[in-house]
């Protein structure tokens, strides 16, 4: 049965691309959830939509428009400090503005409209070798950067006031992290689309944090959930002919709600 699926080159490509992106999304998303910045991640993906359609307008690959726009937006949000980047209303206004611009770019480049669905909801079955190489590169950069800053990132996320006193440069950490998120969002949008990046970047890490009590087990679980959801989603789509992104979104939702239903350990001590 598995050999059936792997008979097709586009399926092999899909598994490879989804594998790279899922692991990256699970790990980066773990910290996004830990910092309570999931909405910022959501906004970055919408800003990426404007970047992707804008890139199409000037003849570039959508991925580079995504990377450029999300990276610029991530850095701007970080530099404008947490006062702005954590404010839901400001983020909400910016993300609808970005979607509006995305629509404008589409309007002026009508032949691009067929690709709009791919940007919004992803098209993992159309990924080519060159894209896989790019995704691999993005993944390597993202995880290397995350590894370099993980210790101060955790400290700054859990106890920002104390971290500041101990000499952690809070704004730099916050900005660098949002840049990492921007790259992960860009890669993630290739698989599940800008509207569904939550399915890999938030669902699996949130479920993992419900279940794990240590950092490393949580990180491993988040990556494994994302990987399993992405791959099983592709398999499910192959046999049902439903859209891949729908299958992944469904699995992500099921795993998250199942994790919520698991009773918390040690709640007898709760106040």
């Amino acid at each position: 049965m598995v050999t059936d699926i792997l008979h097709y080159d586009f399926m092999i490509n899909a598994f490879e691309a989804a594998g790279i992106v899922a692991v990256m999304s699970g790990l980066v998303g773990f910290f996004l959830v830990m910092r309570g910045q999931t909405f910022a991640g959501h906004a970055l993906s919408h800003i990426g939509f404007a970047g992707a359609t804008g890139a199409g307008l000037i003849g570039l690959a959508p991925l580079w428009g995504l990377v450029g726009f999300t990276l610029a937006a991530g850095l701007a949000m970080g530099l404008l400090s947490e006062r702005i980047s954590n404010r839901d209303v400001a983020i909400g206004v910016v993300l609808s503005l970005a979607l509006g611009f995305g629509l404008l770019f589409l309007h002026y480049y009508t032949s691009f409209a067929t690709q709009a669905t791919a940007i919004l909801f992803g098209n993992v079955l159309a990924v080519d070798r060159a894209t896989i190489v790019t995704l691999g590169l993005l993944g390597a950069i993202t995880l290397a950067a995350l590894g370099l800053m993980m210790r101060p990132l955790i400290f700054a996320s859990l106890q920002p006031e104390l971290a500041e006193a101990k000499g952690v440069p809070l704004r730099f950490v916050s900005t660098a992290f949002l840049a990492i998120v921007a790259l992960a969002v860009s890669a993630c949008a290739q698989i599940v689309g800008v509207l569904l990046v939550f399915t890999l970047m938030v669902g699996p890490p949130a479920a993992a944090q419900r279940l794990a009590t240590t950092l490393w087990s949580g990180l491993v679980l988040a990556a494994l959930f994302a990987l399993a959801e992405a791959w099983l989603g592709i398999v499910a789509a192959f046999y049902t002919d439903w859209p891949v992104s729908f299958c992944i979104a469904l699995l992500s939702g099921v795993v998250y709600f199942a994790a919520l239903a698991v009773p918390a350990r040690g709640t007898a001590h709760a106040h």
Partner: protein
Amino acid sequence: MNVVELDRATISIGGRNVLSDVSFTIQPGEFIGVLGPNGSGKTTLMRALLGLLPQAAGTVRVLGRAPHCGNPDIGYLPQVRTVLPDLRVRGLDFIASSLHGERWGLPSLSAHDRHAIEHTLAAVGARDLARRPLSNMSGGERQRLLLAQALIGAPKLLLLDEPLISLDQRHQEVVIDVVRKACRERNITVLFSAHELNQLLGTLDRVLYLGNGKAVLGTVDEVITTPVLSRLYGTEINVLRADGHIFVMSHGRDVEHADHMHEHGDHGH
């Protein structure tokens, strides 16, 4: 050597002088209760000692040196404590994240650090918190965890910013008791800011009372008096003593309790 020394120091935030022309010295091993109305500069003073604020004028010395960020001789318990509700991180890992948390790279926990954490948790009577997730701890337990964290690394000065806030009476007494024991044993100097004087009466050596940009340091009998407090509050204050308690009243209202009402959502900067 004085642990804390301010000489005609002015500390300002955003152009506003929170403390102006303030002088006092704190000796090793003293337990100082830091009191004063909201906005009088309790948090600001601590942040200045931590080297987080630029100093406008005068001299500030901490353990003989100018304040500098990341001073390993200071243990700090901030007033604003971000606790992310859904996090199942264990007490041990929570404290571990703060040890050398300013270094780049992947988190790691050496056997030495793990031992230090467990030893300090045991010293504050909270050994079991190492294995318990943060999300399941009560306010009092979290406070004890943070106290243990502040004590790791043998600090010489402990800055505790409102450690009693949102704790019930019993937990407040436990926290004061833990701080007193830990600091007497290790000869640590403590700055303990609080809204209420009475709970600290049996513990503190001297009171640092802030208000109106000024600071007065002295024994309870020297500082908690009608003339001194009237000057610090900028209004007429009556000090009443009854049954071993001291009440600081302004126009018939207890100012400490009145302050406490505003505390929700106020970070006291």
